[in-house]
């Protein structure tokens, strides 16, 4: 499941759905990204996607993750539109036979989503709006996967 949504969501409900009826999966890892309130100083985030294209590009990386880590299944839900402080932005779940693969795939997918996925991000702060580029840390996080060997 790879889906964009304009509405807040409950990560727990997504995990319940994702884990239901699994018989051969030993490990499920999830990640939920939330917009921090920064003690009231947080900007409102606006995330723009290219509907169809964005899901397809994420789908290609998801397929890479599925093969690379031997995943049984995965789910990605990503917010678009205006996101208020405290609201969830992204949910990723991975299912695998063993925990190392589930963790690494979840980590890998988040590094991709945070640095290269087809989103354009605007911050609406007190000083006006500005477009955001990925941070150096985001690029460094993603680059970890370019050369690293994956544990079996």
């Amino acid at each position: 499941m790879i889906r964009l949504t304009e509405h807040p969501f409950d990560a727990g409900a997504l995990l319940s759905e994702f884990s239901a009826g699994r018989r051969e999966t030993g490990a499920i890892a999830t990640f939920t990204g939330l917009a921090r309130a920064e003690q009231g100083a947080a900007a409102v985030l606006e995330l723009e996607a290219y509907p169809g294209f964005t899901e397809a590009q994420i789908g290609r990386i998801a397929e890479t993750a599925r093969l690379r880590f031997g995943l049984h299944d995965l789910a990605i839900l990503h917010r678009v539109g205006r996101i208020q402080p405290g609201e969830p932005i992204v949910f990723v779940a991975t299912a695998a036979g063993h925990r190392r693969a589930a963790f690494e795939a979840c980590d890998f997918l988040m590094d991709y989503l945070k640095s290269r996925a087809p989103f354009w991000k605007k911050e609406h702060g007190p000083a006006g709006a500005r477009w955001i580029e990925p941070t150096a840390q985001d690029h460094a996080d993603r680059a970890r996967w370019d050369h690293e060997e994956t544990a079996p």
Partner: protein
Amino acid sequence: MARVLLFGPLRDLAGWRERQVEGGSIAALRAAISAEDPELALALAGPGVQVALDQALVRGDAAVGAASEVAFLPPMSGG
């Protein structure tokens, strides 16, 4: 003729998000945009701007049909 889509800062710069533009190739679309808004055309040729034709990334020039969708994608910021 194609449906041209702009995203992110390109949309803010142009003042529009979607428009029909005359031209049988991506190069012709760029020329048509340049005639009307040279600053935008320059930005569309800027570093890191990718082009998607009918939702597939293309490099360089390509023919576009009347029903084609051409999107100019500035550097993606991630979610």
